[in-house]
């Protein structure tokens, strides 16, 4: 599962595998999680959670999380979409944004405002569907 995650992140987003070497990467249920080495090694108590979930692995795809891409987004070289301020706000509210981008493959993309990684979108047929979880969205 970790290998599938690493190769997808490398192939689809251009994040080299060795970017993750200094962290502890592990799986829990279908999630891939990232923690500092020390937090990854700690096993003295029963743990509720450790680090941050950065992706979910499904049979046919690997889906990065909003929290993960806000943290790793600066390393993304491919399948990036840049939004203007008005579009960015709509994206953060969980709305769809109509746009066409050259050089972006359909599927999961990382969405930016200026150089700030906002999260993950699903890009298909001229439409970007925000994947920001309900609890994380900007309201109003």
């Amino acid at each position, binding site marked *: 599962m970790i290998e599938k995650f690493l190769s997808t992140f490398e192939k689809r987003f251009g994040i080299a595998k060795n970017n993750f070497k200094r*962290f502890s990467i592990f799986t829990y249920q279908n999630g891939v999680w*990232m*923690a*500092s080495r*020390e*937090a990854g090694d*700690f096993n*003295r*108590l*029963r*743990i*509720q*959670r*450790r*680090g*941050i979930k950065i992706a979910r692995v499904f049979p046919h795809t690997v889906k990065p999380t909003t*929290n993960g891409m*806000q*943290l790793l987004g600066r390393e993304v070289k491919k399948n990036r979409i840049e939004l203007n301020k008005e579009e*960015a*706000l709509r994206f*953060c509210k969980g709305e769809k944004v109509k746009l066409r981008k050259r050089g972006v493959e359909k599927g999961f993309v990382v969405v930016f*405002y*200026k*150089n*700030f990684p*906002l999260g993950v979108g699903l890009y298909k047929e001229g439409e970007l569907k925000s994947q920001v979880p309900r*609890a*994380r*969205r*900007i*309201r*109003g």
Partner: protein
Amino acid sequence: MRKFLTRLRERYEEIIPDLNLFLDYLLLPLKTTFRINTLKAEREEILSLISDLNPIPLGWYRDGFITEKEGRIGNHLAHFLGYIYLQEAASMIPVIVLSPQQDDRVLDMAAAPGSKTTQLAQFMDNHGLIVANDTSIKRIKALSGNIDRAGVINTVVTRMDGRRMGRLLPEYFDKILLDAPCSAEGTLRKSKEALYRWSESSIKRLSSLQKGLISSAFRCLKKGGVLVYSTCTFAPEENEEVIDFLLKKFEDAKLEEIEVKGLKTREGIEGWRGKEYREEVKRCVRIYPQDNDTEGFFIARVRKL
């Protein structure tokens, strides 16, 4: 509220200086303050993104700011990105006093909802280890959400009674924060909630819980390590009395001076209702609302010899 202020006046007239000013400040609304979170972006980038908030530096903490902008800061793009964290100014102080280093092992014994956990992580630049503990599932959910938003990866979350930790992890941590559950008298400017739970008997019950927690926390500390104990209340039973209890119980506990440049603080009190504390207890600090226009806080810094 008025009735409650009268009770506070009666209770504290002998120990709180400028009592009228103190009570006046308890009625004033708090300024909106926030901390910038440099775990996900550079300081300058964040400041450029929040220029519309006209951030005014707190003056005594580089990452703390005041904004006078109306409206919901929680809906600002910088908040969505986790670059700013709404946090009351005085609640930023305990972590500054603890100042953990990058590779420390840190325990945050009563961590939820996580403003101080995420601040600890920022001091440590996401390295080392934080064990963030709390007892309630609901509060841990809030902690978890804040860890996600702030991008904290050096933290494990546990759910247990902090009083058990001393036996399970003796001499394990370099730094410990015990921001103890308390009667929250200092938070009245933010919310009136504390008012409804406040009673002499709850102060007594909390004091006993705090003594249990601080003993356990001290056992978790390595030799040479530092424990910061804080509350957001004025009640001496939950503050100096708890520290006095610790110093009496553990010969290797030594209280250290606290100084945050630019911040006005007052000494710990030496006695209360017939009880006399060790003179050392003066090294604790009390932060009154009128001193820095914040909530009220109490902070002590203890080293294990």
